[in-house]
């Protein structure tokens, strides 16, 4: 330590507690989980992974998770992209109202929101009653515990995570860019695709990565809105640990989930840094 400058020694001391906590409570447990996932009855074994990828049931489960994440990401993107421009342009009271109605649901408990959707979507619930009152349907349709309910709930819970990163880039975008494109002869469509989209792409990529990895990991929303009918990787992990006590199988499912979530984050951060996406 004698060779260290005073600044560097201070920096080490300041960073040490956080580094120790992250190593002891994050890196080591993850390494152990990884090791456990490769453990069978007698030492090293791939049996947990063989069970996961070798059965139609679990391939279906992985497919369910990916499908839910993909649909939720697409729906939130379609809503969030145009909405972000309006929120970024809004002034004064409107801006506060719009931002407030993004941040309040974001801060509100996921369990509370999912519970609310079980009330909204039940057969005697508000959505059904409204549709009947409008004459769109004649008798209540089954909504809760369907794929539709699941997607509505997931979009509701994860939409702010798509809007906020897109809003952040749109709010910083120089509006004169599109004017310059128009002056230089670009029509509105060309200006949009060749100026607005590339400039806002980093926010879009960040939003997609965030919503996809959050949805693929979601546990509370599928549990309350669709349940056993639509098993996902998270529900499989929870079951393996809480009910059937199959540590190594649960760990393997966890490693697969982790790989999906991390792959999305890593690919998106690469894309975000690609020359075409540079701001």
């Amino acid at each position, binding site marked *: 330590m004698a060779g260290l400058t005073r600044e560097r020694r*201070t*920096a*080490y001391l*300041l*960073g040490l*507690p*956080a*580094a120790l*906590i*992250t190593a002891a*409570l*994050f890196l080591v*447990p993850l390494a*152990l*989980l990884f090791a456990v996932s490769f453990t069978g009855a007698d030492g090293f074994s791939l049996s947990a992974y063989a069970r996961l990828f070798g059965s139609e049931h679990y391939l279906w489960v992985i497919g369910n998770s990916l499908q839910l994440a993909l649909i939720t990401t697409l729906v939130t993107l379609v*809503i*969030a992209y*145009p*909405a972000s*421009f*309006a929120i970024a342009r809004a002034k004064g009271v409107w801006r506060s*109202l*719009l931002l*407030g*109605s*993004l*941040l*309040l*649901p*974001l*801060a*509100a*408990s*996921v*369990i509370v*929101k999912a*519970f*609310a959707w*079980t*009330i909204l979507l039940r057969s005697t619930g*508000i959505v059904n009653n409204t549709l009947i009152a409008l004459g769109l349907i004649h008798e209540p349709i089954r909504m809760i515990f369907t794929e539709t309910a699941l997607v509505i709930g997931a979009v*509701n819970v994860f*939409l*702010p995570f798509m*809007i*906020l990163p897109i*809003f952040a880039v749109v709010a910083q975008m120089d509006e004169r860019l599109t004017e310059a494109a128009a002056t230089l002869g670009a029509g*509105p469509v060309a200006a949009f695709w060749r100026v607005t989209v590339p400039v806002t792409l980093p926010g879009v990529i*960040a939003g997609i990565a965030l919503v996809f990895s959050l949805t*693929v*990991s979601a546990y*509370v929303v599928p549990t*309350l809105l669709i349940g056993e009918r639509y098993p996902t990787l*998270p529900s499989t992990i*929870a079951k393996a*640990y809480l009910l059937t006590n199959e540590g190594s199988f649960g760990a393997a499912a*966890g*490693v697969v989930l*982790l790989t999906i*979530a991390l792959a999305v984050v890593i690919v998106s951060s690469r894309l975000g840094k690609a020359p075409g996406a540079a701001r």
Partner: protein
Amino acid sequence: MKTAALILSAVLAVAACVFLLAPLVVVVLASFSPTPVFDLPTTGASLRWYGRIANLEGFWPALGLSIEVAAVSTALALVVGTLAAIAAVRGALPYADAFAALLVSPLMMPGLVLGIALLQYFRAVGFDAPLAGLLVAHLIVTLPYVARTMIAGLSRFDFTLIDAALTLGCTWRQAIFKVMVPALAPSFLIAGLFAFLASFDNYPVSIFLTDVRTKTLPIKMLQYIEEAPDPTIAAVSSLILLGTIVLLIIADRAVGLSRMAGTSD
């Protein structure tokens, strides 16, 4: 065409916000339901479900435990995370960027995976103390929020201001408390708010680390909803929501909503 696009995006923005707020409004309305079947109070409102909260089995201990775990882990994370953020931003640390990425990386982890990893680990090292385990686990839930927000806040802070204060006759202590602390207070507050809420609302990590006697509020809530959902749960939810709104209003008064939207990416 430009006007049409603007109007369409404004309509979508308002619709999105209504959609986002809908479940919160519904929970509050249902909590005043006069009947046990979540009718919206069309035939008068009733406060009886609020009176029944106290009868919910295990509610008060769960609420107390959640507040305790969230408060203690957030306080520790604020201290440890802020110090680490200073180390990561000041540049004296080798591989500062990698260090910063490491501190924030648990945020990208699916909560359940973190939960089972900690469960395995605690079992392997023979650590069998539910309350302490929960507190320690929530430290890794809250620390990344603090690290992320404080690193962002500190990288906007101009450290030459401290040198300026020293040149102008401040002592080190004065320079820190009169220049650095006020400039970083908003980030500190946002970091604390998000960390507290993340811990208070955490289900996927806690579920693997609780026993019969130590159950946090989210775990009890999910149990109530699955067992016997009645408007009492809506009343509890409304109270949690009220607490969240109060915290957000305090944060808005202190730092403004735009700033919060910018740092909560």
